[in-house]
């Protein structure tokens, strides 16, 4: 994102905002501060840059504010779920401190989507304090979901092409990712893949007519039962390794290994009625046993509880991909599958449940 100067971050460029519904509420109603003060320092005493969702927004947007408390964007429960699973109860106090320094600054709030850029990226009003019912894709969604989702979706990982939904469909994020999903109104989740796929490829009005018998050779019943859509229709994506966090003179920082472009099909670690497929694409996440070593020894004492190659829904969907070029691409080779040889020594145990040892059998045409 282009940088924004300090003055511009707080500049109400369009003063018609003052007469808008939100503007008429008055600055101090939401942001606090000192009424009637005439110098800058006194006026800003008690200012709340980021008003509380329930207190400031809740009186009018009651249902949304109430549901938002359960939104993963607001509470980052996914971090606690996964890091908690890899650790133990006695380590969580230290890990929560570490997450507070390094991970939890990424949470969002009402204002960080609808009024300003995310605080974690410096903040700043993006439209003169106008409230955007539909946030800016580039200044809001991909500001945070940049290096993986944005780069995949827009074709920045050359020569991998952009997602067909973007390059041909011109679909911004919120075409698929609904208000309810963003606001936590679909129910509380322990991580982003908790519950049925949302969005789902075959949701009403999307690819709801796609399935066995639709005239596409590879759309067989066996394929639909065995694989998520992305196994055939996504392609090479970014994988991250070994993020280590630390502090120096009070400044929090991280160091991470260079990302690796790869595409790996593995066994579904989240197989359920809602996600019944045997095979799904897997993405490597940047955790290793020493990720939090700065804060203490063996904090991820249960590291192997989750795979480091995790269920993925890459945002680079194509109609035709290398794995759809021939049956042998999958049925005659392990090229596209995650195998034991792909694992680093520290993650062998963690990924035993997702690696593939031999290509799926072919049962002749129609499989």
């Amino acid at each position, binding site marked *: 994102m282009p940088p924004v100067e300090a003055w511009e*971050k*707080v500049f109400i460029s369009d003063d018609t905002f003052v007469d808008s519904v939100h503007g008429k509420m008055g600055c101090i109603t939401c942001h606090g501060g000192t*009424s*009637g003060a005439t110098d800058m320092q006194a006026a800003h005493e008690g200012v709340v840059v980021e008003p509380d969702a329930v207190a400031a927004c809740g009186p009018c947007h009651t249902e949304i504010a109430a549901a938002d408390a359960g939104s993963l964007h607001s509470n980052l429960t996914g971090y606690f779920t996964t890091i908690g699973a890899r650790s133990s109860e006695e380590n969580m106090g230290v890990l929560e401190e570490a997450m507070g320094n390094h991970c939890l600054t990424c949470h969002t709030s009402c204002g960080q989507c609808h009024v300003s850029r995310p605080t974690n990226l410096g903040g700043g009003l993006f439209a003169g304090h106008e409230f955007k019912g539909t946030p800016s894709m580039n200044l809001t969604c991909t500001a945070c979901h940049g290096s993986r989702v944005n780069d995949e979706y827009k074709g920045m990982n050359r020569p991998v092409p952009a997602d067909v939904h973007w390059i041909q469909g011109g679909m911004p994020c919120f075409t698929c990712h609904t208000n309810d999903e963003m606001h936590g109104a679909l129910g509380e989740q322990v991580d982003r893949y908790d519950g049925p796929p949302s969005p789902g490829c075959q949701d009403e009005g999307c690819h709801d007519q796609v399935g066995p018998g639709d005239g596409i050779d590879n759309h067989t019943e066996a394929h639909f039962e065995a694989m998520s859509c992305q196994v055939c229709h996504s392609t090479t994506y970014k994988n991250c390794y070994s993020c280590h966090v630390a502090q120096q003179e009070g400044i929090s920082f*991280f160091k991470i290994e*260079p*990302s690796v472009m790869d595409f790996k099909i593995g066994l579904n670690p989240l197989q359920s009625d809602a996600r019944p497929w045997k095979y799904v694409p897997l993405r490597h996440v940047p955790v290793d046993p020493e990720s939090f070593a700065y804060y203490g020894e063996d904090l991820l004492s249960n590291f192997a509880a989750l795979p480091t190659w995790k269920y993925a829904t890459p945002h680079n969907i194509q109609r035709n991909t290398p794995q759809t070029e021939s049956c042998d691409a999958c049925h005659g080779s392990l090229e596209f599958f995650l195998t034991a040889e792909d694992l680093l020594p520290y993650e062998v145990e963690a990924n035993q449940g997702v690696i593939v040892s031999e290509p799926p059998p072919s049962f002749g045409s129609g499989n």
Partner: protein
Amino acid sequence: MSNTTRLALVSLLLIAVVLGLAACGNEPEPTTVAQATTAPAGPAEADTAQPEPTEPPTQAPTDTVAPTDTTEPTETPVPPTETPEPTNTPEPVVDDSACITCHTSQETLQTLAVEEEVAESLSEGEG
């Protein structure tokens, strides 16, 4: 009539008047609570001589009629047309004008806004 006779008649008359007045001594004292709305009727007997009160009155006698509570005012009072200015602690009024004045002025903000001191990033790699 001789002077002696005349003196005797006057004395008898005076005695008679004194006796007559003594007979009137049990009449009720003037009360202080009864407010006459009409002028009191005059005594049936001659009132040329007012009896001495047995105790000094604490209030004006009833024949000096006091105004009653039921007296209608002659004019309807007019409420004051101006609210008096508060003299002590005024009601707090939220005044956003200073916020708006500054935050809608590019020139003011460019003068006053201070760039945050960004600590040199020690992070390495994609976030």
